[in-house]
């Protein structure tokens, strides 16, 4: 029995791995887009919310299909796999992508030239003025130019930004929202967020005497974060557009960038690294495994405490619902519980997570891990409540009567006789809910938490390899779920032993 189970799971893993291997082995030919004039009718990949995305949408009327990706690296991966014909993206990251993929090239024609600026909340004109003054100073002294040269061009690495001596940060904190997947403007190196925008923001803070705090969130959440006050500024290679101006203000531009078109050139991908090399590149090089371990820690932490919240709240809800249903008292309380369960079960967990972070805790500077724990705990409680309620309802009314007739009060009867039996009956369903919750935490990245999934994403955005990080993470989730199932199974057998 046990052996066959193990063989079964091994078989499953190999099937997944084999399927993935086949998927990345295919070679796809040259793009049909060879000049800007080929864009009409083509499938165009963009990064969601970038200016490239906004301009590309003009081609929709001409029969083009725009595929928006959360990350530039995902768009590049889709291009390599032939899922899109070209990718429109910022020039600087484009150079990095092309240098790592021999079969991709940038078209000579520039798609659009644009200015990058810092976004600031509308009402915060004081900060805007201060930043504009600081930017002017940095431009005049040449600091800004040096920062850019340190990341772009032949002299890169030769001009690292160093804070001036004796600088103090007594004027408070400046929170910067960014999306660290946009090399060379912002990206992670050895776990640190670095890049042109980061150095520029550091220089700004040194000038303003403020302390810089960086929040790494999804690109399309940055404006929301600034609007809601979660962040003071948004710096992420952002262009000034009319739509964005409706929601936030922008500083003076700090650099000019170009949107370019990347296509497949029909050459060899040069990417056929051996598995071992791939493994080293994804997990060993630059300590990239730390993304996984750090992420795993967050995933476990969030899941564990969310399960606790879910259990406590779920049992409470279930008992209230059951008591109200059987005694027909406290109808308003019952109605509130019913509404809560309906709303929580009726909306996606991701939306709940975003609402709690960006709406409910909008103006509070709050730890996202805490928010995620609460959000997943609340989400799970609604499901657990119904599971527990079904467990309580399954217990014979005679058990209630036996307890009450002996002189136990309602709570004592529940605690001593009903719940122990109910739990035994619902354990498999509860175990299922734990598993769902554990996997649900994979959306934590949306509020800037580096969980296991996001850790893999970050590796993916550095190595442009889908296979290793995705399969690696899938295996870790699988291992955790198998371990959890084993624990639940053990508990189930222990409780069953009692009754025989």
């Amino acid at each position, binding site marked *: 029995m046990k052996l066959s189970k193990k063989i079964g799971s091994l078989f499953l893993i190999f099937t997944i791995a084999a399927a993935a291997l086949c998927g990345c082995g295919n070679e796809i030919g040259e793009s049909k887009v060879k000049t800007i004039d080929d864009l009409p009718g083509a499938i165009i990949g963009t990064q969601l919310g970038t200016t490239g995305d906004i301009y590309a949408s003009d081609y929709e009327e001409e029969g083009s299909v725009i595929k928006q990706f959360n990350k530039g690296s995902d768009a590049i991966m889709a291009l390599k796999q032939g899922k899109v014909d070209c990718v429109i993206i910022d020039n600087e990251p484009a150079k990095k992508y092309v240098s790592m993929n021999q079969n991709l090239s940038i078209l000579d024609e520039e798609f659009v030239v644009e200015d990058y600026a810092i976004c600031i909340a509308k009402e915060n004109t004081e900060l805007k003025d201060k930043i504009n003054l600081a930017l002017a100073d940095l431009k005049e002294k040449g600091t800004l130019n040096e920062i850019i040269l340190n990341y772009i061009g032949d002299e890169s690495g030769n001009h690292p930004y160093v804070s001036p001596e004796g600088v103090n940060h007594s004027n408070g904190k400046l929170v910067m929202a960014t999306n660290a997947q946009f090399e060379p403007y912002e990206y992670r190196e050895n776990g640190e967020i670095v890049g042109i925008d980061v150095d520029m923001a550091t220089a700004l803070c040194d000038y303003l005497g403020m302390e810089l705090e960086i929040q790494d969130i999804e690109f399309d959440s940055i404006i929301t974060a600034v609007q809601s006050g979660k962040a003071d500024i948004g710096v992420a290679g952002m262009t000034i557009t009319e739509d964005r101006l409706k929601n936030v203000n922008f500083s003076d531009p700090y650099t000019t960038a170009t949107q370019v078109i990347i296509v497949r050139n029909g050459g060899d991908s040069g990417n056929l690294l051996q598995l071992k090399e791939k493994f080293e590149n994804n997990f060993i090089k630059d300590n990239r495994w730390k993304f996984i371990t750090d992420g795993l820690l967050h995933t476990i932490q969030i899941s564990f405490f969310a399960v606790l919240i879910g259990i406590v709240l779920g049992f409470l809800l279930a008992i209230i619902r059951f008591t109200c249903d059987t005694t027909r008292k406290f109808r308003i309380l019952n109605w509130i519980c019913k509404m809560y369960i309906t709303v929580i079960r009726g909306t996606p967990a991701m939306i709940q997570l975003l609402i709690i972070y960006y709406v409910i805790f909008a103006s509070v500077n709050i730890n996202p891990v805490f928010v995620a724990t609460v959000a997943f705990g609340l989400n799970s409680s609604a499901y657990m409540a119904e599971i527990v309620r079904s467990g309580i309802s399954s217990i014979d009314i*005679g058990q209630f009567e*036996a307890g009450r007739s002996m002189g*136990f009060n309602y709570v004592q009867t529940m605690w001593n006789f009903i719940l122990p039996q109910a739990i035994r009956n619902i354990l498999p369903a509860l175990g299922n809910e734990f598993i769902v919750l554990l996997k649900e935490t994979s959306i934590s990245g949306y509020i800037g938490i580096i969980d296991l999934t996001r850790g893999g994403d970050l590796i993916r955005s550095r190595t442009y390899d889908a296979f290793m990080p995705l399969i690696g993470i899938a295996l870790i989730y699988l291992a955790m779920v198998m371990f959890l199932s084993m624990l639940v199974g053990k508990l189930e057998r222990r409780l069953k032993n*009692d009754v025989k």
Partner: protein
Amino acid sequence: MSNNTMIHIENLKKSFGDLTVLNGVDLDINKGEVVVILGPSGCGKSTLLRCLNLLEVPTDGKIFLDDTEITSPKTDLNKQRQKMMMVFQHFNLFPHLSILENLTIGPMKLKKVNKAEAEEKAMKLLKRVGLESKAKDYPNQLSGGQKQRVAICRALAMEPEVILFDEPTSALDPEMVGEVLDVMKNLAETGITMICVTHEIGFAREVASRVIFLDQGKVAEDASPKEVFQSPKHPRLKEFLSKVM
């Protein structure tokens, strides 16, 4: 109400929606009496018993236990219930607890008896019904008759003044009825007050000190077993006895 009265029932009424089950029951039960309640099915026997410890809340009327009105909202019902244990038709043992734990949980949690003392008492009771070897077993491992004997022990472990039996042998296979009735007979000899809803006419004749016949939600006859069985007065009682005897 004399000093000797254990339970005093005044004009007890109980309806479920439009259906009136008890329609003004007046009854006094003295200490040490073994009362058997007879009646055709649907006459309200079980409802009367369940009203006595308020598993069913009466629609109207008063019930006194030892001079305390238990139907009054001011009464600590849980305290009163501890004086009056119930034995159910379907035993209602706690399946997640061992036989010993079924017997000790009440005294330990409600009367704060320490574990050693509660277990000693429980073992004595189990020995009395011949089930001391089953102490570590779980209810599902027992036969119906054994379960009901354990249920009686569970009631006795709380040292009640009254035990209510709600058709204690109805769910048993015929060959197991005897062992449970034997335990009840022995119990009757100890002088504890017993109120028993049953169809066991033999038990009523031999053990009861008083037989009550319920009909249409009221006490139709209330007499000694001898009078009831040899010279029944109420026509419905005569009809009932002719069917069951």
